[in-house]
């Protein structure tokens, strides 16, 4: 049974999460007994070098992948034993994503990309909400542009508008500035934090940018698969 969100409980809770993969050289441990909690409205950064397992952890916490051992709870519901579809149902309308490579659908306009989560949540007239979200990210003039017609920064803004359009409880951001130049990256981060504050969503940010991490409530470092608090 998938329960709804309980304000007393953390939005995301991971305990002793280990992820191993079978590679040509045998078993490869990517994450080892990682534990963390993300409370409602909280902003946490996970720092780490390339290949340290940051994105793997993010995927596990969002229920996109399965742990080898340990437990993860999303909105108080353990992900263990849930099918792929049950995990998807748990995310629907309550989880937002921002990716390094934007992940916009090239065949859809900016407006349609933002409408997608609203449509999946069954909202009857999603265009108005999507247009509002795009207006909030400063793209009201670009509603009908395709991703290929937008700059990198604009594409990431569309992705942010899409992430917040369904008023999620938690937002997972994977290197949101990784594909952008420094100036554009800064503006995107400002926008991300601004939108988060307006919606009150919790934010779990994966980055290797320490200045960005410094703006978060909590910082965790992942190194050789181990997750440690960063003082």
């Amino acid at each position, binding site marked *: 049974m998938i329960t709804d969100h309980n304000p007393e409980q953390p939005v995301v809770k991971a305990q002793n999460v280990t992820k191993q993969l079978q590679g040509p050289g045998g078993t490869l441990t990517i994450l080892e007994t990682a534990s963390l909690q993300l409370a409602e409205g909280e902003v946490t950064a996970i720092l780490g070098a390339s290949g340290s397992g940051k*994105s793997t952890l*993010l*995927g596990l916490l*969002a229920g*996109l*992948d399965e742990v080898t051992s340990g437990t993860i709870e999303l909105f108080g519901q353990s992900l263990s034993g849930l099918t*792929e*579809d049950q995990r*998807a*149902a*748990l*995310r*629907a*309308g*309550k*989880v937002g*994503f921002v*990716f390094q490579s934007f*992940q916009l*659908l*090239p*065949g*859809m306009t900016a407006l*349609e990309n933002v409408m*997608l*989560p609203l*449509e*999946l*949540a*069954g909202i009857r007239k999603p265009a108005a909400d999507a247009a509002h979200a795009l207006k909030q990210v400063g793209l009201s003039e670009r509603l009908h542009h*395709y*991703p*290929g017609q937008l700059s990198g920064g604009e594409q990431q803004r569309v992705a942010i508008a899409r992430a917040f359009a*369904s008023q999620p409880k938690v937002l997972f951001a*994977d290197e949101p500035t990784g594909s952008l130049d420094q100036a554009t990256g800064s503006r995107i981060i400002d926008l991300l934090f601004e939108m988060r504050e307006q919606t009150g969503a919790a934010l779990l940010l994966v980055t290797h940018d320490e200045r960005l991490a410094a703006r978060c409530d909590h910082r965790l470092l992942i190194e050789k698969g181990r997750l440690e608090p960063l003082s």
Partner: protein
Amino acid sequence: MSQLILALRFFRRDLRSGELRLLVLALIIAVAAVSAVGFFTNRVEQAMTLQANQVLAADLVLSSNNPIPSAFEEQANTLGLDIAHTLSFPSVIVHQDQTQLVEIKAVSQNYPLRGDLRVRSFADANELTVKGPPGPGHIWGEARLMAALDLKPGAQVSLGEADFLLDKILSRDSALGNNFFRLGPEVLIALEDIPKTGLVTPASRVRHRLLIAGNQEQVKSFQGWATPRLTQGLRLEHLSNARPELRNALDRGSRFLGLAALVAVLVAGATVALSTRQFVERQSDTSAIMRCLGASQSLIFNVLLIRLLLLGLLASLLGIATGWLAQYFLAGLLSDWFGGELPPPSLWPLLMGLGTGFITLIGFTLPPALRLGAVPPLRVLRRDLDAPPISTWLLILLSIGAMALLMLVQAGDSTLAGWVLLGTLITVSLLLLTAWLLVHTLSPLRHHGGALWRQGLSGLARSPSMTALQLTGFGLGILALLLLSIIRMDLLSAWQKTIPDRAPNHFLINIQPTDVSNLRTFFIEQQIEQAGIYPMLRARLTHINDRPVSPDQYLDERAQRLVAREFNLSWADEMQDANKIVAGFWWSDQQRAQPLFSVEVDIANTLGIELGDQLAFDLAGVPILARVSSFRRVHWDSFQPNFFVIGTPGLLEQHPANFITSFYLPPGQESALASLVRQFPSITIIDVSAIMQQVREIMQRGSLAVEYVFLFTLAAGVLMLYAGIQASREHRRQEAIVLRTLGLQRKGLLTAAAIEFFTLGLLAGSLATLCANLTGWFIATEVFGFQFNLNPWTLLVGILGSGIAIGLAGILATWPLSIKPPLRMLQSG
């Protein structure tokens, strides 16, 4: 409901974004090709049937030795059908004390309802087509009559008590071919002249005919009404019980067109299969994002399925409309040949078009679409993750199932569909095997030669599945085009050659045994080639094994008719040239005394006769029993005397028989017939030149129709080529960005593409050429019963042409990538 709304929204975006353009276009062309062929063949077949009806001069003919009951005429009038009357009887024509036995045909003024009459004003004049028969007081006679009585147009002749002006030579009455047992040359007069001749009295032996023609549905309705009301002596003739030569020509014409349409289906399938891949690849990303955002597998699958169904519907409707327009144009071109507007098509091609659209789409897109629901959401973080591969067997099974279904429906002939399907499967297997070998043998080769050579070959080795897909797609397309070329060039000419220019155009029956030797001498003296003089006995089939045979045991109308009447049996030591053993054996010299029968294979199938069965015939009260030792395929359109059942000489030669022969009489030598009649008065001459002309025209028009159908398949082939090239577009785009960034010049990029696609084309072409010739050979020998001659042009065009065409297409497709700056290509995604 929400899934439907979501699907509709996605579908609208699909259409606008152009992502489905190639798939839609492929489907439109596929459906257009099939429905154009469908509409066209449907109309042409109807026109051919109508034209064949000219042999009857109507769609239906009721005949009797007594006046036709008026109820039949009244029913025809009620149904709004056209009717005409004829009376035929033998009589004597007199000219200046000379007499000649003739077959008088008195016709109403609207005769013929189908076909036409052609006349000459004098012996060497051009043939003229006339609208109606001679007016009162006029008579038209065949050239044979003119020769017999040494008449010239303008002569006065007497018929009974009336005098007539013989003003035209009758060169063609299309219904002549039907009148098999004619005693003399035909003369045509107006029906209203009959009373003044005084020749027809209630006691006269006259054949009355009521000719009926009109709308196909009404004709069918009349046939249904009339059949149970046929009393003793009343016969209803229609095309399906007309002469086997015509049936055969029509059947073959239809089969050729069916085969041409079948090939269009094959190209369509290959095109859709190729263009589906790109669509599915793009949809993987959409599915991953949707799953991240909370969509279930079933939602993704359902939405995709609805989109595909909408796509199928839209593309099919557009394809049907395009097909309709295309066939309309073609029908306009051909209607002249058929002497007027072609009949409108039935609904069947429309349903075929819709069916083709959906079956092709579902058969080729459903297996990859099923995978899309299972795309892992983690793909948004790791692009290398893809859905678990679908069972190759499921993929193959569904695609082949779809193909087989389409072929069977399209060909309307399981043997033909079977051979083409087998040819396709062997080709696909060979192509897949070659693709595998190619990818594996390329690895060592890639380390030799120049950089461009390596780049070109690595293009093939980079993605084994893509290479396999392209090779298979190209190979199937080329197979289809070559197969159709072979049909066009070789099978059609083989078909037309089945009636040689000097094919027999006259039959002689009722030849007495005592006349045989003199007749041979006569032919030698007159320098007329004849097909051999064969014995003929008439006997009724009474038993198959110990089971008595009667018409009510058979549901099939033809079988009932065959059993009800007497068979023409013959005996022979050697089998005739136009016959071929398809099962069992022909008797040796040692076996000629044994009681054995050789049976024509179609009649054996119709009557349920098996090899080894014992057949019993009743020959004027004498039972004749023998086992079936062989089945023969007979080329009825060879116009040689042919027999359903032939026995060993030992079985039949002691029984009394007549003889039959056929010969070719060149135009202008009709006087030889007069000498023949004078020397052998008991022999009956049957002129089949009119029916032979009909068969020749059906062949010519059928061939022309196939030529046009080829154009559609060619268009589908061009799109298939485009789809094949586009399938690897994304790979090539990414490579072009990297290579051009690293400094590769335009010429280099194009050369590498040319090497890659030329190699693909050469391989696909070689295998497809091999398989097309093998399939062509099987179809020629097994389905149509022709000899297959390998055409060296197909080898050259198939192998080298494919390499060059696909190589050029590769260069053209890579051209935009070679002129666009790499950064702009990166930005445009």
